[in-house]
C-alpha cells in the first residue's frame, strides 16, 4: 500500500484549498489604508541622453501627490549586483551603477525615467502621460559581437561594452587546444540560445509602507527571496538598517528566476513612501513586465567537440557571447559563468574542457537567471554538438553518449571544470528512458506518421545540473557577494503542534505540503500537526530564498538539522519523565520508549512538559522546545537524466508537433512524487516553449517586438502532449541528510535539445541531410526555410 503520510507519500497539497477558492493572498491583493498608486514614465527609446524632464503639467493633474525624478534619490545607491566575476587577466568585471530612476541617460526601452504617485491608479497613469521627457537619441547597441569592437557605449564611463572576458579554466586552455590539434575528428556548431521572458503569470507588484511613528518600513513584494531583497535594498540602496525594514513576499504567482532579483521598483516604492509619508503601490502591467522583468538566456555560442576514431570525447572548447542587457541584474554575471561553464562536462568523461565567455552590455532589458540559468545553455550546446558529431561519425547518438558516460562506479567524479559529481548512474537512467519512451517502437510510429505525410523524428539527450546552491565558502571564492546557506526555526508548541519558520520561499513548489512530510517522518506525527511559515522577514530566520532547485536540498536540510536538535532535547525530557538515561530513549511513531522496555511517553506529553516544566530537569535543561539551524551545503547536488522527444514535422508548412515526450530523471530521494512530477511537467513545457515557440525579439533600434502575449508565443494547452515522466532511477545525494538533489529546473534544462534533436532527426531521415542545425525557436517559417534549403 502506498504511504499516505511522510516521505514518499503523494500528499495532496494543502495550499490548494486557498488557491482554488480565491482565498490566496498575492501582493496585489494587499491594500493598506491611505495607499497611493505609482505609474512609471518609461523610456520609449533604447538609448539616449535625457535633455529635459518637465513634470509641471503632470503635477497639476487631479489626484497627483508627487512626481518623482532621479533628483529625489540623490545620495541613494543603485540596485547592486550580487556577483563579481574576474576576467581572464584577473581584473574585476565592469560594473555600472543601476540607478532607481535614470540619471542623465536612458539605456533600454522601459528604463524608468520618472514616476507619478497619485490617489488612484488611473490618475497616476493619466498624469504619467503628461510628463514631458526630451531625449537626444543615441545609436542603440544591439549586436553583441559588434558591441565589443567599438562604437556606441551603453555606459560611457566604463569605456567598453565588454563586461568581462572570462576563461574557464584558464589553465585548461593550452591542453585543450593541443587536444584539438591531434584529434581524429572535430565537430563544430554555432548556435543561438534564444532570449526568453520568464513570464510568471503573476506580474510583479511592490507596495512600500513607511510608518513615521515607528520610523520603520514594510515592503510587500513579489519575491522568491524576501531576505535577499531586505539585505540588498536596506544595506546598499536605501541605507535602512534591517531591524527597521520588513519585507513580505506573500503568495507569489510563479517566479522561474525572474523574481529573485532586486528591482528598482521595490526601492522606489519604499523610499517614495517615506518622502510622501503614505503607502505607495506599484502593480506591473503585463506590457510593463515584458519591458522590465529580467530576461533570460540570450547566448551566441560556438562549440567544438574533438573525438578520437572510436568516438571517445577528447576535448571540448566553447566561445560564448552572453548578453547582460543594459545593467547588471542581481545575479546576471554568475549565469553564463559559474552556472554554465561548470556544467560543460555534462554526463561525460571529456578530459580537456575550456570555456570562454564574453559578457556584453547592450541597450536591452537586463538579462539574468531564468529557470535553469546557465545550465540549459550548457546542456543545449553540449547535447546538440554530440548529436551532430554522432551523425558526422555515423555512430548512433545514444550509443555515442553511452560510450562517453561517467560510469556508475566512477563517482565521486572530478570534472575538468571544477565541480565533483557525488552520485549518478547515467547508463541506468538511459535504460529507463529507452523503456518509458518505447524507443523500440519508434520505427513503427515513424511509418504511421509517414502515412499521414508527416516526417517523424526522435531526439534523445542527457543533462546534468548543479543544484542545491550552494557552498558559501566556495561561491565566495567565485565572486558571490552573499552566503548561500539556508535556515529554519522549528517551534514546537505546548500541545505538540509544530510551526516551521523557513528561509525558503514557495511560489508554486508546495513547501507547505512537502516540508511537513519530512517532519512527520522524523517524529512520527501526522503531517497535519505541522505548519510552514515563510515569506516574511519579520517571522522567519535569515534565509536566501528559493531558486536553483535549492529549497529541499538546502532549506530542507536546515529543517532536518533543527528537527534533530528538537528530537535530541525531547529525548532528554523524555528520559527525565521515564527516569532513564537519554541514550536509551528511542523515538518512533510519536512515542519515546526506553529501549528494551515497555516504558514510554508520547510526543504530546514531552512537549507539554517542556512548556509546563513542573516535573522537569530545570537545572540541566532550559524549558521550551524551539530550535534554529542554518545549513550550509558542502557541495552542489547533481540531478541528471535522459530525455526523449518525438516530433512530427509537416513538410508543407514546417509546423512541428511534439507527439511524445519522455523524461527519466535521477533526483535522488523524493519526498512527494506528485509534486516532483508536476515540477518536471512545468519545466518540460517551458523547454518545449523555448525550442518551438518563445523568443524575445528586438529590432535594430532596440524596440522589443515581442512585447505582449500576441507576439510572444507562450506554450498553451494544445501545444504540448501528456508527458511520460519517471524518477525511479535514484542515486541519493551523499552529502545532505535527505539524500535529495532538487527537481525544479530539470525539465527546462533537459528538454530544448531533445526537441531540436528530434526535428533535425526528422529532416535528416527525410533526406534533408544538409540541415544540421536550426536555431530556436523552431517556428514553422524557420523549419520550412530549412526544408527548402
Amino acid at each position, binding site marked *: 500500500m502506498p504511504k499516505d503520510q511522510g516521505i514518499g507519500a503523494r500528499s495532496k497539497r494543502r495550499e490548494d484549498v486557498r488557491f482554488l477558492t480565491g482565498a490566496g493572498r498575492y501582493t*496585489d491583493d494587499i491594500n493598506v489604508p491611505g495607499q497611493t498608486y505609482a505609474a512609471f514614465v518609461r523610456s520609449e527609446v533604447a538609448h539616449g541622453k535625457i535633455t529635459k524632464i518637465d513634470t509641471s503639467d503632470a503635477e497639476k493633474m487631479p489626484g497627483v501627490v508627487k512626481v518623482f525624478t532621479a533628483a529625489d534619490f540623490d545620495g541613494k545607491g543603485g540596485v547592486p549586483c550580487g556577483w563579481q566575476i574576474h576576467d581572464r587577466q584577473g581584473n574585476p568585471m565592469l560594473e555600472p551603477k543601476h540607478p532607481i530612476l535614470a540619471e542623465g541617460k536612458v539605456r533600454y526601452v522601459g528604463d524608468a525615467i520618472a514616476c507619478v504617485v497619485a490617489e488612484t491608479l488611473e490618475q497616476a497613469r493619466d498624469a504619467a502621460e503628461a510628463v514631458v521627457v526630451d531625449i537626444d537619441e543615441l545609436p542603440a547597441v544591439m549586436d553583441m559581437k559588434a558591441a565589443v569592437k567599438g562604437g556606441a557605449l551603453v555606459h560611457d564611463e566604463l569605456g567598453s561594452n565588454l563586461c568581462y572576458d572570462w576563461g574557464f579554466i584558464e589553465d585548461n586552455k593550452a591542453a585543450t587546444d593541443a587536444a584539438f590539434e591531434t584529434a581524429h575528428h572535430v565537430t563544430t556548431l554555432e548556435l543561438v540560445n534564444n532570449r526568453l521572458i520568464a513570464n510568471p503569470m503573476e506580474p510583479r507588484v511592490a507596495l512600500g509602507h513607511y510608518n513615521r511613528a515607528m520610523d520603520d518600513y514594510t515592503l510587500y513584494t513579489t519575491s522568491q527571496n524576501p531576505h535577499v531583497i531586505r539585505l540588498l535594498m536596506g544595506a546598499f540602496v536605501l541605507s535602512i538598517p534591517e531591524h527597521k525594514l520588513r519585507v513580505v513576499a506573500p503568495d507569489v504567482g510563479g517566479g522561474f528566476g525572474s523574481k529573485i532579483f532586486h528591482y528598482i521598483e521595490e526601492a522606489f516604492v519604499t523610499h517614495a513612501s517615506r518622502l510622501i509619508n503614505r503607502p505607495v503601490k506599484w502593480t506591473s502591467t503585463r506590457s510593463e513586465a515584458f519591458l522590465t522583468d529580467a530576461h533570460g538566456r540570450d547566448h551566441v555560442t560556438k562549440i567544438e567537440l574533438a573525438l578520437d576514431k572510436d568516438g571517445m570525447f577528447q576535448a571540448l572548447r566553447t566561445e560564448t557571447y552572453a548578453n547582460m542587457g543594459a545593467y547588471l541584474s542581481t545575479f546576471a554575471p554568475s549565469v553564463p559563468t559559474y552556472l554554465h561553464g561548470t556544467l560543460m562536462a555534462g554526463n561525460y568523461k571529456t578530459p580537456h574542457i575550456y570555456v570562454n565567455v564574453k559578457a556584453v552590455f547592450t541597450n536591452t532589458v537586463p538579462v539574468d537567471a531564468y529557470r535553469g540559468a546557465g545550465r540549459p545553455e550548457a546542456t543545449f550546446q553540449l547535447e546538440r554538438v554530440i548529436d551532430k558529431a554522432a551523425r558526422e561519425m555515423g555512430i548512433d547518438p545514444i550509443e555515442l553518449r553511452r560510450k562517453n558516460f561517467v560510469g556508475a562506479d566512477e563517482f565521486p567524479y572530478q570534472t575538468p571544470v571544477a565541480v565533483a559529481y557525488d552520485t549518478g548512474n547515467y547508463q541506468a537512467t538511459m535504460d529507463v528512458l529507452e523503456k518509458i519512451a518505447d524507443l523500440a517502437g519508434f520505427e513503427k510510429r515513424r511509418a504511421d506518421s509517414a502515412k499521414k505525410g508527416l516526417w517523424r523524428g526522435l531526439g534523445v539527450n542527457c543533462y546534468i545540473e548543479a543544484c542545491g546552491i550552494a557552498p558559501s565558502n566556495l561561491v565566495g571564492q567565485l565572486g558571490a557577494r552573499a552566503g548561500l546557506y539556508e535556515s529554519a526555526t522549528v517551534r514546537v508548541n505546548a500541545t505538540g503542534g509544530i510551526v516551521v519558520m523557513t528561509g525558503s520561499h514557495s511560489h508554486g513548489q508546495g513547501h507547505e505540503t512537502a516540508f511537513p512530510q519530512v517532519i512527520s517522518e522524523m517524529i512520527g506525527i501526522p503531517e497535519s500537526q505541522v505548519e510552514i511559515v515563510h515569506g516574511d522577514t519579520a517571522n522567519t530566520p535569515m534565509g536566501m530564498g528559493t531558486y536553483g532547485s535549492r529549497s529541499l536540498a538546502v532549506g530542507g536540510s536546515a529543517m532536518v538539522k533543527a528537527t534533530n536538535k528538537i528530537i535530541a532535547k525531547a529525548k532528554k525530557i523524555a528520559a527525565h519523565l521515564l527516569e532513564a538515561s537519554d541514550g536509551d530513549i528511542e523515538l518512533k511513531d510519536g512515542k519515546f520508549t526506553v529501549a528494551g522496555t515497555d516504558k514510554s511517553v508520547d510526543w504530546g506529553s514531552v512537549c507539554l512538559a517542556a512548556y509546563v516544566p513542573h516535573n522537569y530537569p530545570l537545572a540541566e535543561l532550559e524549558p521550551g522546545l524551539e530550535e534554529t539551524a542554518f545549513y550550509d551545503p558542502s557541495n552542489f547536488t547533481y540531478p541528471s537524466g535522459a530525455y526523449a522527444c518525438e516530433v512530427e514535422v509537416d513538410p508543407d508548412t514546417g509546423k512541428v508537433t511534439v507527439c511524445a515526450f519522455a523524461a527519466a530523471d535521477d533526483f535522488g530521494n523524493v519526498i512527494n512524487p506528485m509534486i516532483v512530477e508536476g515540477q518536471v*511537467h512545468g519545466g518540460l513545457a517551458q523547454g518545449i516553449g523555448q525550442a518551438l515557440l518563445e523568443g524575445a525579439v528586438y529590432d535594430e533600434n532596440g524596440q522589443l517586438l515581442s512585447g505582449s502575449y500576441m507576439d510572444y508565443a507562450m506554450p498553451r494547452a494544445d501545444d504540448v502532449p501528456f508527458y511520460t515522466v519517471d524518477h525511479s532511477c535514484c542515486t541519493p545525494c551523499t552529502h545532505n541528510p535527505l539524500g535529495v538533489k532538487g527537481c525544479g529546473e530539470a525539465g527546462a534544462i533537459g528538454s530544448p535539445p531533445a526537441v531540436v534533436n528530434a526535428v533535425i532527426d526528422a529532416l535528416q531521415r527525410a533526406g534533408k541531410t544538409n540541415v544540421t542545425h536550426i536555431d530556436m525557436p523552431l517556428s514553422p517559417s524557420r523549419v520550412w526555410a530549412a526544408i527548402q534549403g
Partner: protein
Amino acid sequence: MTKVSMTVNGKAVSGEVEGRTLLATFLREGLGLTGTHVGCDTSQCGACVVHVNGQAIKSCTAFAADLDGAKVTTIEGMANPDGSLGTVQQAFQDHHGLQCGFCTPGMVMSAAALLAENPKPTEAEVRHHLEGNICRCTGYHNIVKAVLAASGQDVGQIAAE
C-alpha cells in the same frame, strides 16, 4: 461615475464605477473579491475568467458599467454550500492541477464552463478549450487530467501523474 447593481455569487451588490472600470477591477477593488486575477493587458491569459449570466468571459475585457443586472459567478462562488471544494476544484487538487495558483481561478472557471457545455470532452477538446488560459507552472498535463477527471472519465491510464 455610474451606479451598477449585480448579483455576484448569489449576493446582490452595487457600486459606483467609472465608464472605463473593468469588471475585473470592480470585482477586485470594488468588492474585494481578489480571487479573480489579472495576468495581462491584452486579453490573452485567462486568469480573469468569470461567469456572466452563465457564460465564461474574460473579466478584463468587460466594462462593469455595461453589466448592470448581470449574474456573475467568480471563483469565490464555486465551492459547495458547506465550504467543501466543488467538483472541478476538487479534481484540480486531486490531480495536482495547480502550482502557484495564479492561473487557477481562471482555469477552474473556464473548465467549469466547458463541462457545462460538453460534459464528456475528449483530451483534444479540453486542450482546445483551454487555449485562452495560460499556465506557466504545470505544463498543462495535470490540468487536462483534472478536467477529464472532473467530467467523470477514468484518467488512471494517462501517463504518470
